[in-house]
């Protein structure tokens, strides 16, 4: 039988509170001027106050199971790609204290395992993905697809929940950054959003993504590598550039997307960019948060060819080709 894994459900959760970039600037949470971030397309970002990364992960995954009437016992595997150990259970104001727990046996208190219990995923094997930063959920989907094909799993639930580091402000290289969680269900034979191609490139030279001395190099490397990964992703699906109906971005600056799409020879009109202003950049799943909203809003229709692309600290460039 021809196996065609795809994404059958997406849910996401954002914090109850949000801040405008001007409020963030006034609070000293930005490196850049608020006006510049606004010019780059950012307006508000979600800021967790009372929530923990685990709370949002649980909310996103619970919503997915409930809204799509998924029997928890039908999930064969849970892939968790989110905040590690004790940090997953800490509110931002407690994060520094929680970080100390990573140095004792509480390091082995895993969000993935607790999710399996809290969601009653009784038949799910549990795996954790780490160190892929903003590409983690894409990595999880790639792995889920591989598990469906290689091991015959029917349903793999991918969950990512990340807060921007509590002591790092709210800006990642001129991008306003939100806390959020995202859950994606990959099914072995899905009717929608089939994963028909994918490319991932890691350049270890840039491993220290936020070190000042490396930022320039990363910024320079970002564009040509991203354009080539997008081209290769399109080719891996057997498409040509003109066939791409939508580009589901990671929510980095609209200006950088303008430059990248020109470089890649893809039209800006096909960029689904409405969440850059509304949510900003999340570490946990911009692309699928956007896809969910684009599907709900009717912008993406069945059969559309969707190019998903994200870059994450580390340094990882990942593209996926989906047939909606």
């Amino acid at each position: 039988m021809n196996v065609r894994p795809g994404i059958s459900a997406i849910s996401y959760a954002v914090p109850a509170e949000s801040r405008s970039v001007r409020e963030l600037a006034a609070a000293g949470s930005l490196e850049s001027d608020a006006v510049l971030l606004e010019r780059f397309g950012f307006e508000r970002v979600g800021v967790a106050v009372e929530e923990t990364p685990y709370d949002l992960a649980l909310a996103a995954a619970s919503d997915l199971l409930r809204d799509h009437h998924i029997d928890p016992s039908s999930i064969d595997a849970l892939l968790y790609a989110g905040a590690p150990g004790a940090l997953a259970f800490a509110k931002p104001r407690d994060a520094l204290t929680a970080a100390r727990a990573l140095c004792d046996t509480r390091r082995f208190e895993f969000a993935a395992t607790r999710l399996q219990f809290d969601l009653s995923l009784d038949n799910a094997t549990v795996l954790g993905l780490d160190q892929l930063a903003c590409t983690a959920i894409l990595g999880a989907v790639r792995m889920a697809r591989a598990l469906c094909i290689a091991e015959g799993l029917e349903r793999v639930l991918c969950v990512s929940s990340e807060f921007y580091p509590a002591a790092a402000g709210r800006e990642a290289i001129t991008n306003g950054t939100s806390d959020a969680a995202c859950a994606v269900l990959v099914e072995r034979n899905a009717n929608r959003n089939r994963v028909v191609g994918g490319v991932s490139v890691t350049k270890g030279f840039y491993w220290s993504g936020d070190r000042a001395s490396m930022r320039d190099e990363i910024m320079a490397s970002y564009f040509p590598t991203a354009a080539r990964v997008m081209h290769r992703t399109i080719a891996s699906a057997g498409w040509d550039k003109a066939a791409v109906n939508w580009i589901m971005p990671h929510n980095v600056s609209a200006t950088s997307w303008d430059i990248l799409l020109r470089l890649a020879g893809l039209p800006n009109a096909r960029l689904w960019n409405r969440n850059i202003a509304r949510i900003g950049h999340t570490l946990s799943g911009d692309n699928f948060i956007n896809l969910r909203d684009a599907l709900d809003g009717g912008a993406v229709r069945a059969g559309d060819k969707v190019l998903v692309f994200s870059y994450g600290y580390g340094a990882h460039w990942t593209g996926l080709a989906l047939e909606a």
Partner: protein
Amino acid sequence: MTTCFLTGATGLIGRQVVARLLVSPRVERVYALTRRPRVESVGSTHSVHGDVRVDGLGLPADVRDMLAREVTTVVHLAANTEFSQSLEDARTINRDGTLRMLELTADWPNITRWVYVSTAFVAGLRTGLIKENDRVQARGWANAYEQSKAEAEDLVREARPDWVIARSSTVVCDDLSGTISQMNAVHRALRLHFGGLAPMLPGTDASRVDVVTTEYVGRGIALAALARDVARKTFHFCAGAGAMSLDELLEVSHQAFLRAPAWQRKGIARPMRTDLETYRLFEAAVHDAGSSRVRQALRSLSHFVPQLAFPKTFDTRAADALLGETAPPVSAFWQRMTNHLVGNTPAVEAA
């Protein structure tokens, strides 16, 4: 016999030209204008202290009279070749200095040849085939250097009946060995690529990079000064048909860098070619959000790389006929030049 008066004789090309002139049996003497205060004579070369930024070049009356009596050929090379200078600064030496030279030599009775060394890029933002005898009809210029040289060409053509215009392409190395004696914007662009700071360059499918060696240009200018029947001619000392496409040049450079194992491991991306508008957007983004290091690097290129987006091929038929051969193709020295630039060892170069 020929007695030459050269400006810019101590520069990279000037030294080549002097050396070439001195081996000609027809050249009796070379007077070389120098800003050094000491007057020196070495063989048939005599240094003359002066400055093209000063009226009359600041020459004492006796020196001026001597030159007026003896000089048969003027070769005006002195120029400010920085691409990033302001138009005012560029004009100071390139246009006004030429005007001072023209005024000084206007009544020297024995001059039969007045060679102005210009740049092929007086063509500015024009595209397509640039013919040698085209007068400057630029559609704007990429930088003040190009404009000031174009303005100077006009002055020379109008003032002298015996003008010869020697338009040089951009010099990137001494000779086919690829040795670099003087760095310029081309080398800075390559260094950015090597440093992993060059994501893109403007250009089109038709963009070609026309660069030459000092040896070739020096030979051409010397011949332009000495050959018969070249008055009122313009020569393109350019790679012409031997120019390399921008895509090929980026690839060859990248491959040369990759021969260094330490560089290869970094995984630095080959810069992409894009349209000028996209490049300008990137420049603006760096201006807004980049570090001072990258802003400064891009600023240093901003007066040079836009030229790549205006593809042109320089007609070199007159220069080829003068020299009896075409310029060395860029492919004959680019890789070796690149190796020199980044310090690749001979073993790496051989590989």
